[in-house]
Every structure is written in C-alpha cells, then in structure tokens.
C-alpha cells in the first residue's frame, strides 16, 4: 500500500536508462573495490553464523547445567562451552570491525571518484548545457544525488546479510521445533504491515513539515533581505507578528512529524513484548507438559532469535525506497556524465601570438532547432578595431559574442581568427587570447587579488599594479580595510556592483588578451562610479580588438564602428555621428536607449524646472 506514496515528493522523471543499464554501470563502478567487497562479504557470512551460534551454545550450557554432575568431564564441557561463547562474543565485534574497516577503504574512495567524475564532466560542458540545467540546481548532482547513490550501493551490500539472517533463523527454529517456529514467524507479517503503515504516516507528516520548513526559511530570508526596508519604515513589530504565524505552523508540523515517527518504537517494543509472551506461554506450557522436546535452553534460543527478527525486517522495508532514490540519483548523475558537449576541444592548432582579426563568414546559429538567431551572418573586424553592437533585445547581440567565446557551437558557416577556422584551434590556447567582461560580473569566493589573478596566476607584481591602476581598482581599494586581501564573498556579494565591475575589468586586463569581448552591464551605478567605469573601459580597449554590446552612450560614441543588429542581421553600420545623420534605425535606438544619457538631457514636460547649463551664476 505504500507504493501509492512512492514518488509523491519526487517528480516523475523520464527514465532514460534501463534498470539493467544502471546495474551494469554500477557494477563497473564497484569493480575496482573487489578486494574490500569480497572480504566484507565473507565476513558478513561469518558474522551471520557467529550471531546465530551464540544463543545455541548458551542454550546448550543451560541444558547441561540442569543436571549438574561433579565429574571432571562435566567441568571440561562447561569450560569449553563457556570459552567458546566468550570467543564467539568477541568474534562478533571483530566481524563488525573488519566490515567497518573494509567499508572505510571502499566508501570514501568510491564517493571521491564519483564526485570527481561528475565535476570533471561539468567542466567539459558548454554553456548550452548550463542554460538547460541552471534551474535544476546542478550542485545537487555532486552532493545529494551522489550520496543517495552511495547509500543505495552500500545498502545493497548489507541487505544480502539481512536476508541470510532471516532465512537461517527460520531454518534453525524449524529444525528445533516447527510449531513454535511458525508461531514466532507470525511476528514478521505484523511487523511488515506496521512498518509500511508508519512509513506512510511519516511520509505525509514529513512532507507537510518540509513545506513549513521552507516557509520559515523564506520568511527569514525575506525579512533579512528586506531589513533596510523594514527599518526605514519602522515596521518591525508587524513583521515579527507575521513571522510568529509562520513559526507556529512550523511548530505544529514539526511536532506532528516527530511524534508520528517516534511512536514507531513503542509499537515495536509492544510487539516484541507480545512475541516474548507468546513464546514463553506456548513454549513454557510445552516444556512443562513435556510435549515435544522443549527445554529451558530451547526456550532461550527462541526468545533470543525473536529479537533478531526486528532489525532486518525494518531495514528491508526501507530498502526498496532507498534503492529507488539511489538509482534515480544515479540516473541524474549519468545524464551529466554522458552529456555530449557541442563545443568540443578537437582542434590541434596552438596559437601563441595573434593579431586579433575576427571574421564571421556566413554563420548560422540557433539555440533550439528551427529558431535561427543568426542566419548567413557575416562580419569582419580588423585587428585593433573598437566595434560596438547595438540593437533591441533578442536581436542576436549576445549570440555573436557567445559564439566568439566558444560558449556555444554554431551550425553553419565559419568563424575565423587571423584567418584560421576557430574550430581548428585548441580551445585553451584560443581562450587565452580572449578577455571577457560579462554583464553580471561574477567573482569567485576569495580575495580581490585571487580574483584579479584568476586568468594569469603567474602575473608579476608590476603587471598587477598596472592592471589595478588602469582599471581604477586602486581607487576603490582605498576604501577597503584589507585592500587586495579583501574577501569578496560568494559570487562577489560583499562588493558593490560597481566595485565588482571594476574588479572584473582588472581581471580581464591582467590576462592581457588581444581580443576583448564586453557585454556592457545594464545596471547603472552612481554618477561618479559610472565615470570611473567609463575611464577604465577606454583604457581597457586601447590597442585591442574589442567587441562591445553597448548600453552606454559613451561607448557608442567612442567606437570606431557601430553595427546595428536586427533579427540576426546587420542593418546599418557606421559611426555615431554618421548613423545619427542617416536618421534610420540607429537614430531610433538612440532616441529610445541613449538619448537620456546625454549630459544635457532634460525630460520633457517640466516647465517648472529651470535648467542651468554650464553657465556661471551672475
């Protein structure tokens, strides 16, 4: 009945791999660990026998002691029994020890290899892959999916042991006394039903708890992120009252979940007490009345085996669900490992020095099939040119620079760098000549210095200082206590947007690329920082081939050439002045996007404001 609940919190995913495929590949993964696996399997069998043998020996001692004799043989029998019991007891621990040591040799290494493979596969992927999976939280492939799979693999190994225990217990009990064995076995179905029932309840309460948990989290995040707003408005009391409600729901859900899970154990104990009682009643009666050959020892064997039913059965109940989760995780992992990146590093031309000439020759490109972004697109950028690209959203501006950066693969035509087809050049040697500053400047967790040196870790101190100066990062460092050693936080969150932008300029500059690709940030900063960014941008582009998606008026004005893009085609090109005179699409764009950035711009319909422009007061 709990099968109904399977997959309630998991979305139905398309299965791409058959079970057989998953098993085959799992075996391949486990294969290198043959030695620890074999050793622990053997030990597991030994452990099973050890744990079954100890009550039998004890029973034997009990039965022997019922008629004590003062002979020497009796003494030796007792001594032998006692010593072998002691030996087996200690052996139980040794078995556990060996199994644990073997799993220490196996599990961490297995997981490291798995995670390393996933991570390496991620490094091979192009941006198309990341576009597709970004929302899917790729990092859970490395963390939770990998550990789900690890749990499933190790569970498969122990589950065999559990089955063995159950079967052997029953065989031994049946051999001793069949009716009593059957009575004892009755505990199994009851326990199974009970476990399934509890799983079902736990599932329901856990789900509502997870929801409550998530809402506490988001409520907390909301209030912390909006703390400036709350404080500015002075509404802390109202916000606290809202939180109290969320917190109350969380309390109820959490309490319910824990109670419903915690109740399982009293039930198991009750069942075990009833089992003990039944065996004592029936077995005792039989022993007293002499029906069958039941002795005090037999009774002891039954009672102690009964206790051994419980753990394996509860484990078996969880087994299926955990295996499911593990295989689902492995499937998601395989989708990453098996994904074929479109951009592949197949070229073998190493380029040491380039002039920086770029040519797009009849390039066709689409992100998804049948929706061409660039069609028969041609463009030549001579070395050292400053080219600005303008156009409405969706015109294909970003695609041009993404193709140039080899983030995506194009479908037709050619892209040539210094007349060499781009696909023939080794990716790493090509990208070393490329400097990119992206729209949302991303910094790695670490210091400012580490970030600036990211593309050239062996940069000399002089080069670093020069990069700092030209990019104006030196000016912002004045305001930071730890200077270059300032931690930027995750994704650079401890710096302001303007600061992050300047740091990413310095990073590109230090790498000293011949070709500079720039997706100008749309988010503006304050007037002064904006002017700093402009200044450093000009320095950055000097003497390099640069392609800029322009959002700033100053950039288009400074460009050697502007191309106006519309639906993947160049519809106009020229200089700012020239294009403005033409009165075509550029003039249109200028009025929409750039005009208000003019220093002298004044919004219309504002007669009440008197504008004083560069005129000294009388």
């Amino acid at each position: 009945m709990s099968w109904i609940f399977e997959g309630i919190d998991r979305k139905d995913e398309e299965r791409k791999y058959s079970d057989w495929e998953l098993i085959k590949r799992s075996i391949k993964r486990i294969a290198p660990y043959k030695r620890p696996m074999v050793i622990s399997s053997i030990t597991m069998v030994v452990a099973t026998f050890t744990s079954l043998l100890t009550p039998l020996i004890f029973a034997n001692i009990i039965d022997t002691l019922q008629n004590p004799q003062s002979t020497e043989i009796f003494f030796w029998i007792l001594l032998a029994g006692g010593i072998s019991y002691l030996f087996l007891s200690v052996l139980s621990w040794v078995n556990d020890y060996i199994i644990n040591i073997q799993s220490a040799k196996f599990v961490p290494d297995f997981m490291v290899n798995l995670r390393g493979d996933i991570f390496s596969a991620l490094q091979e992927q192009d941006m198309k892959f990341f576009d597709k999976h970004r929302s899917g939280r790729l990092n859970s492939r490395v963390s939770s999916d990998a550990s789900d799979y690890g749990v499933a693999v190790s569970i498969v190994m122990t589950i065999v042991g559990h089955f063995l225990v159950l079967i052997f217990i029953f065989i031994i009990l049946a051999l001793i006394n069949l009716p009593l064995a059957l009575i004892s076995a009755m505990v199994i179905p009851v326990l199974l039903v009970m476990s399934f029932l509890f799983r079902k309840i736990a599932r329901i309460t856990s789900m509502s708890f997870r929801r409550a948990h998530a809402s506490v989290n988001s409520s907390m995040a909301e209030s912390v992120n909006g703390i400036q707003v709350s404080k500015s408005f002075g509404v802390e009391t109202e916000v606290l009252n809202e939180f109290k409600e969320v917190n109350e729901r969380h309390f109820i859900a959490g309490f319910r979940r824990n109670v419903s899970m915690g109740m399982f154990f009293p039930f198991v104990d009750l069942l075990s007490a009833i089992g003990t009682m039944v065996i004592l009643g029936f077995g005792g009666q039989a022993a007293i009345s002499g029906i069958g050959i039941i002795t005090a020892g037999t009774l002891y064997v039954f009672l102690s085996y009964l206790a051994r039913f419980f753990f394996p059965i509860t484990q078996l109940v969880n087994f299926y669900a955990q295996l499911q989760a593990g295989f689902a995780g492995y499937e998601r992992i395989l989708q990453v490992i098996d994904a074929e990146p479109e951009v592949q590093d197949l070229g073998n031309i190493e380029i040491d020095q380039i002039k920086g000439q770029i040519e797009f020759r009849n390039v066709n490109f689409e992100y998804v099939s049948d929706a061409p972004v660039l069609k028969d697109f041609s463009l030549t950028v001579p070395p050292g040119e400053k080219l600005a690209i303008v156009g409405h959203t969706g015109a294909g501006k970003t695609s041009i620079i993404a193709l140039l950066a080899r983030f995506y693969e194009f479908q037709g035509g050619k892209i040539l760098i210094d007349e060499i087809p781009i696909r023939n050049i080794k990716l790493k040697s090509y990208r070393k000549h490329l400097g990119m500053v992206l729209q949302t400047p991303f910094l790695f967790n670490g210091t400012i210095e580490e970030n600036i040196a990211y593309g050239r870790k062996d940069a000399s101190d002089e080069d670093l200082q020069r990069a700092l100066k030209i990019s104006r990062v030196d000016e912002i460092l004045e305001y930071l206590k730890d200077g270059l050693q300032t931690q930027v936080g995750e994704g650079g969150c401890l710096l302001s947007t303007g600061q992050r932008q300047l740091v990413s300029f310095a990073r590109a500059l230090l790498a000293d690329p011949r070709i500079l690709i720039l997706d100008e940030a749309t988010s503006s900063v304050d007037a002064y920082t904006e002017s700093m960014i402009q200044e450093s941008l000009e320095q950055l582009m000097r003497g390099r081939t640069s392609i800029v998606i322009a959002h700033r008026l100053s950039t288009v004005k400074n460009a050697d050439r502007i191309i106006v893009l519309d639906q993947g085609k160049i519809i106009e090109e020229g200089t700012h002045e020239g294009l403005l005179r033409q009165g075509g699409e550029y003039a249109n764009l200028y009025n929409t996007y750039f005009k208000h950035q003019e220093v002298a711009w004044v919004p219309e319909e504002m007669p009440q404001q008197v504008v004083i422009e560069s005129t000294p007061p009388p």
Partner: protein
Amino acid sequence: MSHNVIGLQKTQKSFIRWFSGHLTANPLVIGSVVIGTLIVIFSRLLIPIVLGKAIDMAIIDKDDLLSPTDQLSLLRDFVLFLLVLGVVRFFIAVLTTFANDWLSWTAQKRIREEFFNSMQNKPLKFHDSVRTGELMALATNDLGQVGGLISPGFGMIADVFISIIFSALLVIGVLNSPELLILSIPFFIAYLWAVFSFNQKMAPISHTFMRKWSAIATAVQDNITGAEVVRAFAEESYERQKFMKYVLDFRGAWYRQQILQARYFPTLILFAAIGFSVLAGSFLIMFDRLTIGGLISYNGLLISLMVPTYVISFAIQIFNAGLAGARRIHEMEVREEGEENGQGDKEFPGISGIIRFKDVSFKYPTSRKPVLDKINLAVAPGQTIAIVGPTGSGKSSLTNLLLRLYDYEGEITIDGINIKEYSLESLRKSFGRIEQDIYLFPRSIRENIIFGARNASDVDVKQVARLAQAHDFIMKLPKRYDTYVGEGGSQLSGGQRQRVALARTFLTNPSILIFDDSTSSVDSRTEEKIVKAINTVIQGRTTFVITHRLSTIRQADCVIVLKGGKIVAKGHHSKLILTSPDYRRIFGKNVELPPLEVSRTSITPTFGGS
C-alpha cells in the same frame, strides 16, 4: 590576554544562563519526561528478569516444589505479568515521546521567535557583516539540532547510564548475586573509559568532517555559477585540480572517521562482558551460587545494553551538535555590535527646520579609514541635496546615519534637537528612503506598496501608484495590483521595481526623503517617467539624492562631492562645474566643459583620470 579570558567566561556564563533558561522553561513537562523515561527503561530491564524467574520457578522448578498444574498456572501468571508490563510500558513510552517532543518543539519555537526578534532589532552594521544564508541556517538547521539535543539526544545519552544503574540494582536486589556484580566491575570501568575516550577522539574529527564537506559544497556552487568565467579564461583544469584537492581532503577526513568508528571499543567490552558472564555464571551455577534463570536474566540485561551502547556514539554527536548550534545562535544574538544603540522617547514631530551634521564621523568595521571624517553640513528645509563621489566614499552611509541605521560619532540635529533623543520608530517613520538595491518582498504589488502603511485604502494605493508613474504599467499586468513580484521583485524590470518602491515610500508621506538612486538602465521613456515621479515626490520635501542622473544632479539646490570621507566640494552645479575637478570628472570626456577656474577653488583636489 587575561581580558579575553574574562570575556570568554562572561559569554560562557551568559550562554549557560540563556540556554538553561530555555531548557527549563517548562518544569512540569520536564518532570514527567524524566519519570516516564525512568519507568520505560526500568520496565525494559524487567523483561529479562521476569523471563529468568519464569524459567527458574515455573519451567525448570529445580527442587520440584510444584505440581505441573501449579507450574502451568504460575507460568500463566508470569505471561500475564509480561503482558501488563508490555502494555504499561507502551502507554508510558507513548506519553513520554509526546511530552519530550513537545518540550523540544516548544523550545525551538520560542528560541526561533526570540532569534527573529533579535535579528530584526540589530542595526544594519550587523546585517552588513552577516550573510542571509547564515541567519537562515541558524534559524532552521542549527535550531533543529538544538531540538535534537532535547529530543532524542538527552534521552539517548541518559539511557546507557540509567540502564547500568538499574541493572546493578536488579542484580543485587532480585538476582541476589553480588558475585556477578563484582565480576562486572572491571568491565564497567573499562566500558565507561571507552565511551568517554571515543567521544573525545570523535569530536574534533567530526568537526573537520563537516568543515571539509562544506568546503566542497562551496567549491561546486562557485564553479557552477561562475561557469562562464571559467570557460572565458579557459581554467577548467585549474578548477578540476582545486576541486580534487577539496574532495581528497574530504576523503581523508572521512576515512579517519570511519576507522575510528570501526574501533568502537565500548561494544567490544560489552561483548567481552557478555561472554565472560556466561563462562563465570556457569561455574557459579555449578556451585549453586546462581540459578539458571539468574544467568539468563543477567545475560538478557547485558544484551539489552547493546543498542543503547551503539546509539550513544550518535547521541553524543547529536548532543554536541545541539550544544554547538545553541552556542552559535546565542553568539549571534549577543554579538557586540548587535545592540541597537540607545534611543530617546521623544516623538519625532516632522521637520520644520535645518538638518545639521556636526563633526560626524563614521567607520565600517571592514573599512581601513573612516568612511566619513568629521562631516559638517547644514540642509535647509525643502532643499534637494545631491551627493556624488566614488563607490565606497560614504554617500550611502551619510544618509543611513540620518535614519540612525548605524551608530556614528559627532552629532546630527534636526531643528536643533539631537536625533538620538527621538524614538527610533517615530524617527524612521517620518523618513522615506529608497535604497540602492531596491528590495521588494516576494508578495503582490499591493502588499509591497502598503508595506509601510498597512491600513491604506485601495484608493490611496492607486493614487500613490499614479504619482509614482506606476499605475499604468501595473494595470497592464495580468493580475494588476495582485501580481506577484517574484523573489526580490524579479518579475518586474528595474524601472518598474523602482516605481513600485517610489509608491511604497510615497504612501507613508514622509517629510524627509532619501533617494539612493541607481536603477538598471532603462529606455528614455521610462527614464522620463521615473524622473517625473521623482520630481513629484521631492516637491516640498527635504531630499537627499545619490544618483547617476545628471539632470537630477543639475537641478539639485546643492551638490556635495564626497571623496576620502570628506566633502571635497559643495555648491550648486553651476558653481562646481567651474571649480571642482572631481565634480567635472563625472561628466566624462565627451562634453565640452567651460575652463576650470583654478584660482577660485578653496579645496585642492586630486584630479584623477587624464
């Protein structure tokens, strides 16, 4: 040094007081949990005793005291007793679980509420230095661990020790076998030693384990969000190396933890004790110092210690994690800079006179030099002040101080009264502040607009939205004012967010306006609308504006140029354009500016750029 130690002792003391206060908030429930736990454990230990007695008296009946019929009826009594014992234990266990979870979850609820309130009341200085994720983790994960400490942590740890004491009493009292007890003492001592030494070794290892694991998580997160940068710089192999270093490091920690787990000696000692008791017990029976049932009972008692012994290694981890979690929460709550600085009880009456900064200095904990260094400034009512300066020069700080979001040196007065004499709430309520990174709550547009004035009518909401030039675009959205704005307002464009924020501020009708203006670049039409909205809002209000809109700067009554924590230039645009090189810098090089009148400047500026 000694100062530090005293400080540490002090926090330790305050932590203990705080934590034990939360733990003992409900003594009645605690009492019932303790009693319940004792009964449950005792009845669990009674089972092997009863079995042994039943075997001795009813089944073996060594000295043939009873007839088979009497034996059978005695057996029935024992069986019945077992049933009663089982049922009683069941009910008590259920009630105890209930009470224990109640204790744990009410404590979590209480602490979470206290924590939330405390975070709310921390000044912004505090919030700048902590990450949202960290606070979220404290409020959920860490607090969850505290809950785990209360239930089942405490019970699990107590189990072993209570069981041992009860067992010893039962061995003496019921089994009547001091020999067994004496023989067990060495094992008992070794056992306790093993438990303690294991946990001593485990604590640092599991700590490293967790730390190394989170290093991996961060590395992966960084690599995925920075995928474009990694590719742009062709640093995939470096990233792989870095990652492998982290995982291998983690593998080492994991391996050490596993090995230590394997060498779990308490169970070895218990196994040995069980084995030895059978050996010794047999001979005690032979010499009539013990009964068979007595040995079975003793064996059962020891075996029943097995599960709690396995569990205790976990339980101590749960316990330590809970304690560490509680400590982190408490530390966060009492963080030094955490005290919201003192406030007066005067109601802020609204502004009618001059705002004056007198020698105001301010420093972030992370800044090298003072962000604001002895600032003096006077602003007449109704004036618009534009503030310009490099990023990090203290523009936002200057305005934040007015709301007392941070503490500062010097004095700020409004109408001659020190703002510290007003109550924080009334002071802040009369300010309208539009922050740099506009934050909208993930709710509907309406709920966002009424954030500062929750009783506002729909008519009011629409009116302010019109004034903020937001009404038109809102009406074009599918659910109009009920449109959900997304996480942080992500469903709206930058220009739209800003206008919603304007409406939100406008609704509270503030007498002083602070405008940290930087929105995503927008098209000229939107820009026009925003400027229009700003101009409407600032009419008749004292306004501070940090902006990149040159049109706004030019219209300001006064521009102040901040650099290096000082006001390097101050005055109207028309004056500054002639006198301040720093001010001229923001107009870039594409504009023909009138010649600089060097002779007339009183401040010697450092002219950056060429």
